[in-house]
């Protein structure tokens, strides 16, 4: 029963897609033709892997840069504080697509950054680190004041306070918003197709152009992204349960 309730939503999501496929078949009389799309599976897997790598490399750097931005914002040095604030405002106010165009075609060209993969990492990291710095802020500010006081009154030094008292609770606090951000990050890689990065979305568009099996291509896309997002969501839920505080 417990197993069912934990994974039920995953099952319903898959069922939703299957129903949609059946509906298309029933309503429009569309008969699926998988052979042409399946011929391209090595390219598709390569694109899918590229999306996975882009996501996790960007996430890794975003977690670091986000933390730096958070500490800059908290800093007593006005200059650092404002750099962080302005950076966040720029990232919050700019659609990712616009950022892709500006950073790749204008800034990238100006500084001779020709490697698309590197540019893509820089763009995704910049965009996500602003959001992640806010997630850190929420996580740290959400720690009750009494936890800091108790750590101080019992003689923990600053390092010990963060290491043993604050960070374990912050991790628990930031996991739910981080799940959402990570899912957004996975899907936002699709916009990198505008700078011709061969990630999953761009690859499928290429395959579709050859096979003309558009619906099949989109089905592969939907399933491919689900294969990434469902394990992320389940593993973070698992970590949340392990770290459960209240």
């Amino acid at each position: 029963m417990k197993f069912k309730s934990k994974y039920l939503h995953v099952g319903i999501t898959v069922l939703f897609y299957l129903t949609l496929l059946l509906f298309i078949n029933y309503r429009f009389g569309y008969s699926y033709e998988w052979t042409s799309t399946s011929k391209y599976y090595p390219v598709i897997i390569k694109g899918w892997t590229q999306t996975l790598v882009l996501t996790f490399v960007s996430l890794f750097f975003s977690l670091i840069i986000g933390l730096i931005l958070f500490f800059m914002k908290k800093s007593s040095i006005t200059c650092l504080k404002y750099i962080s604030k302005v950076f966040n405002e720029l990232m919050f106010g700019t659609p990712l697509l616009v950022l892709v165009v500006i950073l790749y075609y204008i800034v990238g060209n100006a500084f001779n950054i020709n490697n698309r993969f590197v540019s893509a990492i820089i763009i995704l990291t910049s965009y996500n680190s602003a959001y992640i710095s806010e997630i850190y802020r929420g996580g740290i500010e959400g720690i009750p004041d009494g936890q800091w006081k108790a750590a101080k009154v019992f003689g923990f030094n600053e390092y010990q306070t963060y290491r043993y008292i604050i960070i374990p609770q912050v991790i628990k606090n930031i996991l739910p918003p981080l799940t959402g951000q990570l899912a957004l990050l996975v899907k936002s890689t699709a916009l990198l197709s505008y700078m011709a990065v061969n990630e999953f979305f761009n690859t499928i568009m290429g395959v579709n152009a050859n096979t003309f099996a558009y619906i099949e291509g989109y089905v592969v896309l939907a399933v491919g992204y689900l294969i990434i997002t469902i394990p992320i969501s389940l593993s973070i839920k698992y970590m949340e349960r392990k770290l459960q505080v209240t």
Partner: protein
Amino acid sequence: MILKIENLRKKFGNQLVLNDINIDIEDHHIIGMIGPSGGGKSTLLRMIAGFEPITSGEISINSINVKENEELLHKKCGFVFQSHNLFLHLNILDNITIILEKVHKIKKKEAIRIAKTLLTQFGLIEHILKKPSQLSGGQSQRVALVRALAINPDVLLFDEPTSSLDPVLTYEVLDAILKLKDDKKDFIIVTHEIGFVKQVADYIVFIHEGRLVEHGDVSIIDEPKTEELQNFLSKVFSWRH
């Protein structure tokens, strides 16, 4: 216990919350701090514990200067907060052992032994693996008391330990504090439980509107000299008539 406070002042912004406090207490074991809410007694206790900055003046407890020797102070004074402030991510056992291991550098095995002995003594041993959120208010406060006791402090400081509890849980916690008197522990307690203070304390400090208005042995509760303490006690006891 020896408590010396000289010319102590505390400001929050422009607001003066404690003004010119001077106390010299020696050879007393249990000090009860009483007074109306917002009078500054909890602030004073937090300053004695070293986690509320002192605006001006000096505090020393058992010859430890609060401003100059913070590290030693935290090792020698245990503190029980108004709301337990247990570490929410740790179970009850770890809440106690983490302080012994990381701050007092006691080996894990010995830390567990100390924690288990005290938890048994206070009737909490069956909750050892629970998280604070799984305990009642009274149980949490008793764990907070055990946590403060585990460091074997010279003095324990209680900041209104029962103010957030219902009468039954209040009794549970006061009963646990009463045990400390039998164990000859020194402590300072800020509380509104005047009857309890009268029973356990051997010295009373009355703080009103940021000033130390009256202090002395426990008889001042029965024979208050100042008008402020008379008014305070008459209000506290008025419901009984």
